[in-house]
């Protein structure tokens, strides 16, 4: 049976593995969007963090330091985006485009420079630098790993994979259970209202975009230090963009967006699986992107009927925005 050959425990294990980096970026998109920031620079931040993470791991010989630095680089790049967008008033989308430019060609430049490219023998990747012992380690979860099927699917993932899913919960707590989250949501929805009670809109926006960058940074670390062994050109391959779509489909909520990210993960895992069974990988690779477009359309159609109910809320917002 074909279905049995596809839907193995390995397959579901790979869904989680593939979803994790998208999920990191999705959470970044969720936090950004809650504060009213469309961060299309997630893609570029992931590339930059992936590079610096893998290099740091190589230099220090510690994967944990690499992950931390990737996170830090993500935050720094995001804050710079914030400076251009909030202070110099560059359109946030254009700021994102610029970060993505640096993320693609700029990183290659840095790789060549940093890996001390001598006379044309420049490295175009850091794949040779990340060895097995520098990879983010996988952990077997006691008890869980002994459960049949479920154990095979859920146990044995990397620390970062578990972190991604755990961060969904953390993001939810942050947004809905902490004063900062309350401020982020109010700044995103009605900055005037927030400002009128003494909340510093600019500060909250910087914090939100910084957190968003931190998430993308972790996603980058995952890409170069677990998903692949080292950085290579265009390795993020639109995951940062897919994250924006996942955010939209999940209506901006952490758990809903996680489900959307899982759908993309599933689509991609399916693609890989099908191609391993003989189908052309180039034919199945576009599936997640097509699913994204389809998902957005379905979401828009559902949103339309819901919009009618929410009409009054929107009107109020519009009035308040004036």
């Amino acid at each position, binding site marked *: 049976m074909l279905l049995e050959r596809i839907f193995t425990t390995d397959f579901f294990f790979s869904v989680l593995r593939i979803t994790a980096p998208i999920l990191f970026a999705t959470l970044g998109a969720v936090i950004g969007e809650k504060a009213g920031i469309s961060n*299309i620079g997630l893609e570029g931040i992931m590339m930059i963090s992936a590079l610096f993470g893998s290099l740091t791991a190589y230099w220090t010989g510690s994967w944990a330091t690499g992950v931390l630095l990737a996170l830090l680089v993500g935050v720094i790049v995001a804050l710079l985006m914030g400076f*251009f967008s909030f*202070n*110099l*008033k*560059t*359109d946030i*989308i*254009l*700021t994102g*485009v*610029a*970060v*993505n*430019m*640096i993320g*693609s*060609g*700029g990183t*290659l*430049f840095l790789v*060549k*420079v940093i890996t001390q*490219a*001598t*006379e044309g023998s*420049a490295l175009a990747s850091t794949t040779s630098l990340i060895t097995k012992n520098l990879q983010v380690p996988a952990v077997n979860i006691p008890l869980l790993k002994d459960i049949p099927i479920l154990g095979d699917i859920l146990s044995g993932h990397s620390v970062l994979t578990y972190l991604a899913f755990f961060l969904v919960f953390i993001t939810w707590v942050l947004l809905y259970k902490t004063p900062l989250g309350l401020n982020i949501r109010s700044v995103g929805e009605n900055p005037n209202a927030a400002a009128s009670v003494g909340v510093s809109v600019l500060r909250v926006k910087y914090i939100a975009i910084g957190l968003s960058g931190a998430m993308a940074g972790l996603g980058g670390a995952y890409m170069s230090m677990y998903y692949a062994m080292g950085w290579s050109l*265009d390795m993020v*391959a*639109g995951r940062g*963009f*897919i994250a*924006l*779509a996942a955010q*939209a489909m999940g209506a901006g909520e952490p758990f809903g967006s996680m489900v959307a990210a899982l759908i993309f993960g599933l689509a991609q895992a399916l693609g890989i699986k099908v191609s391993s069974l003989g189908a*052309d990988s*180039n*034919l199945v*690779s*576009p599936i997640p*992107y*097509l699913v*994204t*477009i389809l998902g*957005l*359309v379905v979401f*828009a*159609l559902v949103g*339309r009927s819901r919009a009618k109910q929410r009409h009054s809320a929107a009107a109020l917002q519009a009035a308040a925005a004036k």
Partner: protein
Amino acid sequence: MNKKQSMLFGLVRGAAAILIALLVTTLLIFICADTPDGASFGAAFSAKLTQTGGALRQLLIGPAFRSNGSISTKNLSDVLASMIPTIFTGLATCVMFSANQFNLGAEGGIMLGAFAGALGAIYLDLPAGILPVVCVLIAAAAVGAMMLIPAVLKAKLGVSEMVNSLMLNYVVMYLIKYLLNTHLADKSKGQVQSYPFQADAAIPQLIDNGSKLSWGFIVALVFVVLTTLFMYRTRWGYAIRMIGINQDFAMYSGMKVGGIVILSQVLGGVLAGMGGGIEMLGRYTAFSWSALPGYGWTGITVAILAGNNPAFVPFAAFFMAYLDKGCNLMSTYSGVPAQLIDIIQALIFLFFAAEQFLSRYRQHLVVRNTQEELAQKAAQAEGSVK
């Protein structure tokens, strides 16, 4: 602020943006420069300085002049040749951004256009003079049709054209790679590429020096004029611009907003597709792109530099092509990687698009202007009293 001051301000701002980018570039080159082993600090520093100077010379002057000071026609024609695709993606982005449509699909568009043009060049059985023209038209139509997807979804359902166009870029790339690897692959070649184009399909060259400066360059310039005319001299281009400024105003004035939103993106697609087709037939003899070429993103930079005005696109495209060539020369002669161009590009881009960048200077101009006007009025009033 009057028009002269506006222009002055624009000029100063542009120059400042470029200057900052070049400063950062210099710094990066300086950091990249090698140091001789075991050299003292002073010696290392001066070695780095010399290297930086040499690299900068390649970057800034190399594309135009040989080392002996004479003009380098080969390098210059290389620069002009590499403007062809970015003029088209720049024009496409101008049209779409003018309507406030953040469609980022020019990247996938130019690849699809190149591919569609290539298909025509391989398979169509047409007379010599007509074949390339038809191929380019097919390329334009294919990408125009592709842009219908984000455009219609935006106009009818309000789905973000930005995300959809980004997704389409990937879909297009993989599907082309699929076709290239399977049905179209010329198995007799060592690398992945299509069957060769018919010789008649090639767009003739302007100069036969290997620069690949084809008649496509002239076509590109013609389309600069046509697009400028369209945007500033026709009712549709006018509607596109008005929707970009104030959609409610356009609706209230009786324009069909949804239709114009679609038109702007389809037109962007047509331009990008045309650029792809022309680039393919003017430069190559078989299709072998296995990844997105990056012209779409450069096109966005070009449009931003041109202030979304098609008439300025060739200048912006020249500027970018010149820098690109400079970076290539620099990497050949001094070991600074050519991808420095992406960092320069991003920096110029960021400062150019920054509304508040140098806003104090603008404020200064405005205040001075207002004061002058007030003084004038006062003088007039005094005069009338007398």
